[in-house]
């Protein structure tokens, strides 16, 4: 591999890593702050992609579709949190696992009833449809660069909210000690409802913005579920910074794994995760238990 190839692959890896961060961001939030293992994360991502497909069909504009889709996702998140999740906060984590597993089944079937089982493409918005030349014969799609920029924006936004706002302060307080926070008069129930809805909205948003490159089909959520957990766990639970660095690490490892050790490409990310956890059992930036 010469230098040019190395740089191109590094770009691919970083770009893929950013995409992984976006996909996993909603999970980091729910998982890190509420301690809920949300298996339905992939299903929310899929719902987002289908919302994009449906709303683009109606409006002919991806950005408008996203603007319309986010409130729907937030509403879905709020309803699910109030109706189901909120009743499980005092329970064992495994009950939440089982509940969100049930949610996957319900959401998958709902998708099928609403939108059918066909494969669909969502067109890339015209103003971002071009490519920029990269090497003598390879170009880079502008839309992918756009997604990378959006990922960076989401990362910065999450950091700002959590580190700098009153909501973020409440969130951090609630995550570290729920009883104490409630005793101080903060409505922890409302905070968690907001966090959950935000997490669902982020999952759906990544599905929407990714729809033009991923295409839209039943079962697409399964594929992002596991990789999202890998990202969050490598980074360390509750750490947005960890998830960001974890995602970049995985993006790079996966990309170079495919090129350098093609026979073991599918195992590289899992081997990486195992190694990280053996070295630091609480993830790269997780707090020691």
């Amino acid at each position: 591999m010469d230098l040019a190839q190395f740089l191109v692959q590094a770009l691919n890896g970083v770009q893929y890593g950013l995409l992984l961060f976006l996909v996993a961001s909603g999970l980091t939030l729910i998982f890190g702050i509420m301690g809920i293992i949300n298996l339905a994360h992939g299903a929310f991502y899929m719902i987002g992609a289908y919302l994009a497909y449906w709303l683009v069909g109606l409006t002919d504009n991806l950005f408008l579709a996203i603007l319309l889709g986010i409130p729907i996702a937030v509403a879905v998140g709020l309803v699910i949190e109030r109706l189901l999740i909120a009743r499980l906060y005092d329970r064992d984590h495994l009950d939440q696992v089982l509940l969100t597993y049930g949610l996957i089944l319900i959401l998958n079937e709902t998708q099928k009833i609403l939108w059918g089982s066909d494969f669909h493409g969502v067109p890339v918005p015209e103003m971002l449809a071009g490519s920029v030349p990269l090497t003598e014969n390879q170009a880079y799609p502008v839309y992918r660069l756009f997604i990378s920029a959006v990922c960076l924006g989401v990362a910065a936004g999450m950091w700002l909210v959590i580190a700098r706002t009153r909501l973020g302060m409440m969130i951090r307080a609630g995550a570290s000690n729920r009883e104490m926070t409630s005793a101080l008069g903060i409505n922890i129930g409302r905070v968690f409802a907001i966090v959950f809805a935000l997490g669902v909205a982020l999952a759906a948003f990544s599905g929407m913005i990714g729809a033009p490159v991923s295409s839209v089909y039943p079962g697409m959520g399964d594929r992002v579920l596991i990789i999202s957990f890998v990202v969050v766990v490598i980074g360390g639970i509750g750490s947005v910074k960890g998830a960001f660095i974890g995602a970049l690490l995985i993006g790079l490892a996966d990309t170079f794994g495919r090129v350098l050790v093609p026979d073991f490409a599918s195992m590289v990310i899992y081997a990486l995760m195992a190694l990280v956890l053996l070295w630091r059992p609480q993830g790269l930036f997780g707090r020691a238990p």
Partner: protein
Amino acid sequence: MTDTTRARPSRRRFLAGAAATGAIASTGFVPTRFAIGGQAPVKVGILLPYSGTYASLGEAITNGMKMRIEQAGGTLGGRPVEYIAIDSEASPPQAPRHTKKLVIKDQVDFLVGPVHSGVALAMAKVVAGRDKPIMIIPNAGANALTRGQCARNIFRASFSNWQTCYPCGQVMADDGHKTVVTMTWKYAAGNEIMAAGTELFKEFGGAVIKDIRVPFPDVEFQAHLSEIAALKPDAVLAFFSGGGAIKFVKDYAAAGLKDSIPLYGPGFLTEGLTEGQGAAAEGIKTTLHYARTLDTPVNRMFLEAYKKAYNKEADVFAVQGFDTGSLLLQAIDATEGDTGADASPAMIEALSAAEVPDSPRGPWRMSEAHNPIMDIYLRQVEGGVNKILGVASRDLEDPATGCKLDT
């Protein structure tokens, strides 16, 4: 899904066709004939995916098969038809249980399925060697099903993986290409199709520079596209299906490779997907046993009838379902409606010698190993449709290596 004429895939049992009488509830021993007008139904068990990524294939196959039987009067050998459908979930671990339910509990006369090759092998394990049912595979392409694992009572109405891309090599060589990179998922179908596609290419003196294998069912292709750009082959031979195929074709074009390195593959790369792929698919040459644009009276009628019945465009999977229906009709006509255990040899004999003149894909016949002998077309995407350039290979028969059938 509000169109009531649409035959929806369903796990519920229901009757199609004439003479739905009270006799249907009988289980176990089924008398084939009562008095006139009171005949027991023929049971057709269906094991296809109706959920998950492959659900659209399961629907298309079911629709095609039911449409064929409807066209023949809605009966099989003069008897009404009872369809018993189970969602295969495209899951090999669940396949033995599903198959046994249809074979042992429901005692189906015919078993139609599946889409997924792993499921097909698990089904074959249950079905092979029994007198009943006769199994008809409407999609799964694993070569072994009509090679080493072929069986007396198992027939394929679709294709072997080998057939779909064997002519690819010649096509690429004819276009003057000397070097090729192959790219597909790292799984059995991908390996089989790529091996077939490069067989002739090598014979004509072409060289395979690299075999790129993407973890299944991953759809992140960017690293490999950069590899291809650096390798600069004359052509790329690729196989993906469904959502993966849409994404691959779009990514390939977006990476700017489409114009400098032409893309070839089996028809699954573009068939029924050109709408989702858009302009990115233009110019791709593929080989397959069907194309929607095939200009024959049979195909035109088929497309029109399918659209009318299901309010949807037919695809290659619907054709395979349709031909499955034709095979069912031929089998049962050979015994004049008798599906008892002792009628099995006559039905098997009829299917072994089956000729299907009225298939939307063009006439084909059954090989000794129970796999279609058929024309493979060369197609190219033009104006958003797969246009037929000609026949890439006439009467192509799978080599059926290792198939021993003691008939």
